[in-house]
């Protein structure tokens, strides 16, 4: 919403400065977005061309001698305007002046060998219109040497407010003036609109067939108008707020739209066929609108139609056919009420943003429907002459004001402000509310221009914003009176722990999009319909991700494409198995690319880093699980990872037969091809939300530490097993041989060779033995070794290597 200072002062008697007004507007909730005090126009002065001679070296240029009115010698200006002539009074800009229309700061120039000390300006160069056929040509008596902006009344400061959607009353300058006056910054000029007595009935009849979309319509005809340009002051104001003057009738409707927040429409009566009907559009019905574009309508939209078809999209935009132009002699003026939600929907569907829609969708003042029409009539008669018929009001049942029961103590309850009762009541009255009653609770009648107010809290806001938000002194929130306990949930703690644990492993945390392309989603088990966006921002951001991996892999590839091929990225965030809250998972995932291994990437004098692989991913996954407090010693690893992993180089981490805690591995070539990326790549996902909640412990005391007095020893075994035997099985078998004495088993060598036989491999383990009751004898060790060998043989079919 834009307006000028002088326009505001039409409605507000005030001594306040521009700065004070701007500050107050923001303070009462009409946030000032921009102010143009027009200082940029100050350097432009009225000047007289004394002589104009042909440029010696250019047909289209003249060399002017210009009296700038500063009492000094005339200045020489080279000018290309066709209307540059001796005796012209125009607008001069001296060197050093910034000319907004051409975005140039002038300097002394030489044009085809002739020096030019400034510029005579066109209207476009001053950005006061699009006129550029010649330089500004002022009347003879324009005062040379004075400010052009002041002379032309274009020095009027412009204010733009960022209006919140709840304030239809402030879509007009009058409403803004009312708010400022209520806040004590002057007096509102409240002269009522004088009705214009009509002569005879309006000959065009209007029928409302869709009363649910049109709660009222006022119409009148003005005959015999002369539709020339609107008055200069009106044009200047419209230009100032960025509107293009068209003709008097159209300009008047635009002016009242901004002056009063009351949109109007004018029909050229001669172009209207028969009578008018307000109805729903027929499916597929079309209209060529005033913006010269054709719109196809639906029965959800409301139109004004004559017997020839649709003449206007109600409350949004008029039709071109019955628009007013310089030949219009009889004009039908419309002032109507439209159902706000329908206007919003229609405007949104058709993609039309107009000043009328802006106001109707917020809800215009129903009680100003008729006065708005009277005001328009008055201005039409003043500018265009003619004679008006009686106003026809159709379908308007009158406004039933809302009343709110308002305990004045609410102000203190909700804001902490101590506002005296009289002050609260006075503020409400100044804003046009009518409080009644003398007690602590008053009945407040809400004015017709404030559809946004319907409860106690709304009235508190009115009192607060006018009394002053700055008056509210900050008050500490009551202390909870104790040292804080833990505030994070287990999942939040684990999320945090997972992030730090992975970052400590040299990985960088990425935040990638929650939506990915359908193709990528399908590659990782997603792509179901319920997780597809109906209106994605881009085609490749259409599906909620089923996994963090495709986003991370793509991110790794982007880095590789920039020349950073060795990257380790992770993310701890949501994936989506369905559209319900419990189907959103919390995943920690990571990828390593190139040689970005834990110890470091790339070449190194003491040994280059090798390509990343399944065991890098496995280590990352287990580190996350450990950091999250998962029972790491009870996890099982199975080689049955989902299809996007390399079937022979991937695994699933399980807790018991059912709970899957994670997957890890290198990727299937088909998945990499589908993502259009290249490796080496490995990655993992850990389902942080699947880790069981830790058991509540009655004490923080750690279990007693039992340290054996006997020396711990290590014994090595090498087994030959079938190639298919998993090391994990063998290790479990070895540990299981004596759970009391064996404290750990470490695989230290795995190899395959012809000597072992076809399909065989050797697994060498180091068994840690911790005697607990006595030092073990050689016989004890032999017995233990036998149990290990026997158990391994039983579980894996392996034999001790000779």
């Amino acid at each position, binding site marked *: 919403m834009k307006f000028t200072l002088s326009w505001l002062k039409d409605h507000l008697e005030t001594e306040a400065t521009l700065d004070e007004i701007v500050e107050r507007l923001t303070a009462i909730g009409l946030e000032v977005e921009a102010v143009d005090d027009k200082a940029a126009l100050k350097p432009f002065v009225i000047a007289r061309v004394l002589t104009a001679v042909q440029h010696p070296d250019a047909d289209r240029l003249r060399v002017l001698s210009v009296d700038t009115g500063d009492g000094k010698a005339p200045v020489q200006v080279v000018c290309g305007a066709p209307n540059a002539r001796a005796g012209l009074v125009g607008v001069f800009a001296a060197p050093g002046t910034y000319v907004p229309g051409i975005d140039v700061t002038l300097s002394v120039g030489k044009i085809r060998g002739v020096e030019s000390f400034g510029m005579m300006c066109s209207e476009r160069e001053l950005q006061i219109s699009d006129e550029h056929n010649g330089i500004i040509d002022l009347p003879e008596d324009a005062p040379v040497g004075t400010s052009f902006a002041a002379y032309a009344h274009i020095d009027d400061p412009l204010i733009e407010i960022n209006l919140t959607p709840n304030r239809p009353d402030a879509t007009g300058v009058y409403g803004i003036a009312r708010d400022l006056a209520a806040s004590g910054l002057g007096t509102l000029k409240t002269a009522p609109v004088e009705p214009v007595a009509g002569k005879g009935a309006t000959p065009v009849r209007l029928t409302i067939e869709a009363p649910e979309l049109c709660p009222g319509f006022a119409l009148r005809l003005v005959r015999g108008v002369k539709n020339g340009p609107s008055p200069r002051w009106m044009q200047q104001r419209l230009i100032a707020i960025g509107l293009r003057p068209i003709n008097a009738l159209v300009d008047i409707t635009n002016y009242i739209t901004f002056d009063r927040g009351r949109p109007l429409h004018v029909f050229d009566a001669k172009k209207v066929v028969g009578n008018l009907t307000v109805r729903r559009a027929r499916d597929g019905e079309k209209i060529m609108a005033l913006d010269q574009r054709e719109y196809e309508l639906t029965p959800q939209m409301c139109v004004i139609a004559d017997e020839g078809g649709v003449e206007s999209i109600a409350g949004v935009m008029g039709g071109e056919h019955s628009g007013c132009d310089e030949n219009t002699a009889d004009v039908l003026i419309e002032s109507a009420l439209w159902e706000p939600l329908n206007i919003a929907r229609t405007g949104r569907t058709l993609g039309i943003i107009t000043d009328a829609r802006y106001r109707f969708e917020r809800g215009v003042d129903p009680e100003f429907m008729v006065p708005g029409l009277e005001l328009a009539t008055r201005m039409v008669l003043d500018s265009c002459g003619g004679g008006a018929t009686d106003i026809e009001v159709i379908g308007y049942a009158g406004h039933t004001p809302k009343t709110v029961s308002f305990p004045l103590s609410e102000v203190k309850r909700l804001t902490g402000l101590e506002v005296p009762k009289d002050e609260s009541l006075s503020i409400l009255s100044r804003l046009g509310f009518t409080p009644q009653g003398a007690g602590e609770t008053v009945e407040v009648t809400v004015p017709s221009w404030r559809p946004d107010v319907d409860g106690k809290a709304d009235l508190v806001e009115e009192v607060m914003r006018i009394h002053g938000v700055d008056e509210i002194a900050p008050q500490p929130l009551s202390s909870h009176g104790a040292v804080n306990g833990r505030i*994070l949930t287990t999942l939040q703690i684990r999320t945090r722990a997972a992030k730090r644990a992975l970052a400590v492993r040299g990985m960088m945390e*990425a935040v990638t999009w929650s939506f990915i392309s359908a193709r990528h989603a399908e590659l990782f088990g997603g792509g179901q319909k319920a997780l597809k966006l109906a209106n994605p921002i881009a085609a490749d951001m259409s599906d909620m991700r089923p996994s963090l991996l495709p986003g991370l892999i793509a991110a790794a590839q982007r880095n590789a494409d920039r020349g950073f091929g060795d990257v380790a990225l992770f993310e*701890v965030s949501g994936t989506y198995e369905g559209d319900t809250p419990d189907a959103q998972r919390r995943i920690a995932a990571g990828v390593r690319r190139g040689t970005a291994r834990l110890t470091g990437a790339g070449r190194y004098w003491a040994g280059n880093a090798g390509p990343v692989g399944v065991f890098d991913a496995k280590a990352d996954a287990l580190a996350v699980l450990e950091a999250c407090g998962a029972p790491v010693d009870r996890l099982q690893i199975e080689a049955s990872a989902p299809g996007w992993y390399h079937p022979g180089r991937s695994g699933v981490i399980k807790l018991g037969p059912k709970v899957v805690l994670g997957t890890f591995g290198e990727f299937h070539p088909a998945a990499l091809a589908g993502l259009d990326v290249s490796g080496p790549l490995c990655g993992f996902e850990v389902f942080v939300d699947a880790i069981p909640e830790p058991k509540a412990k009655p004490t923080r005391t750690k279990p007693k530490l039992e340290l054996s007095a006997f020396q711990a020893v290590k014994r090595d075994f090498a087994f030959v097993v079938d190639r298919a035997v998993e090391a994990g099985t063998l290790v479990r078998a070895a540990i299981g041989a004596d759970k009391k004495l064996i404290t750990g088993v470490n695989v230290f060598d795995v190899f395959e060779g012809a000597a072992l036989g076809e399909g065989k491999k050797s697994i060498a383990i180091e068994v840690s033995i911790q005697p607990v009751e006595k030092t073990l004898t050689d016989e004890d060790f032999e017995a233990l070794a036998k149990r290990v060998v026997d158990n391994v043989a039983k579980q894996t079919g392996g034999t001790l290597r000779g």
Partner: protein
Amino acid sequence: MTFNSLENSLLAEIAAAGDEQAIEAVRLTALGKKGSVSELLKTLGAMTAEERQVKGPAINGLKVRVTEALAARKAELKDAAIAARLVAEKLDVTLPVRSSPAERGRIHPISQVTDEIAAIFGDMGFSIAEGPDIETDYYNFTALNFPEGHPAREMHDTFFFHPDDKGERKVLRTHTSPVQIRTMEAQKPPIRIVIPGKTYRQDSDATHSPMFHQVEGLVIDKTANVANMKWVLEEFCRAFFEVPSVKMRFRPSFFPFTEPSLEVDIQCDRSRPGEVRFGEGSDWMEILGCGMVHPNVLRAGGLDPDEYQGFAWGMGIDRIAMLKYGMPDLRAFFDADVRWLSHYGFRPLDMPTLFAGLSS
């Protein structure tokens, strides 16, 4: 050979011995069974007492001196050998070492700032609540007092899913406010929560991203008012931006789910390109929206607005991260460029706490 010349000759041999073996050879020559000194010692038995009295100390003295010389030379040779080994073992210590993984890894600014927020509000007695990204129209709009078809809904540029069998379409939450309702449904007041999380709007430029992060705050009890809200937000901004004081401007505004509603600007100095300083300067920058929870929202949460009251606020995590740490472009947050992460990210062991400072 005279006594003296034997000694001189032995000492010279000892001095000349270049290694352990040579020393041993000299020792045998002198002190072995048939060694020259041993032979001399043997002669003592055949001597008269007088003779022994004279020669005894001399021969024994010789033995002692030779033995000492042997030991000294041996030690000397050992030291030399160690010195030689050390020289041989010398390495070029200017060779680079691998950096620690903990120094290479990075925490994303969004996670770090979220932790900073948790540290501050945790101190004020708040807990952290979360909610789903995919929401129903009810939780995202209706329960938050956005009437059906209201222009305020349009301002949200909502992402929609396809309608289900019942014609209902889920949305990607446009704000973290649905968690207000979910929390009120799940727990009775007093409520003090902050809600960080992902939010989505169909918007994209240098300061808007279709996915972004918000943190919502909610206080509900029987007394919480605008004055308390001002205090909480001022304390938060002061603590978060780590300045001794901040100046904030509360402006009346409009949000469907609060009444009264306010927008908050923070005073700052933006005169240095690419840098914002808080607690000084003459610019105002909008930083958050807040207000008293709308009675209709309290009702939607099952609370009586005449009994309970409270306030809520919301702000962009990415935005306050950008303001504090100076990232110029929001889109880079989601690009995972390791150069950006390395520069703007945080070291994993730099954990924000109040006792050690949020970021220093």
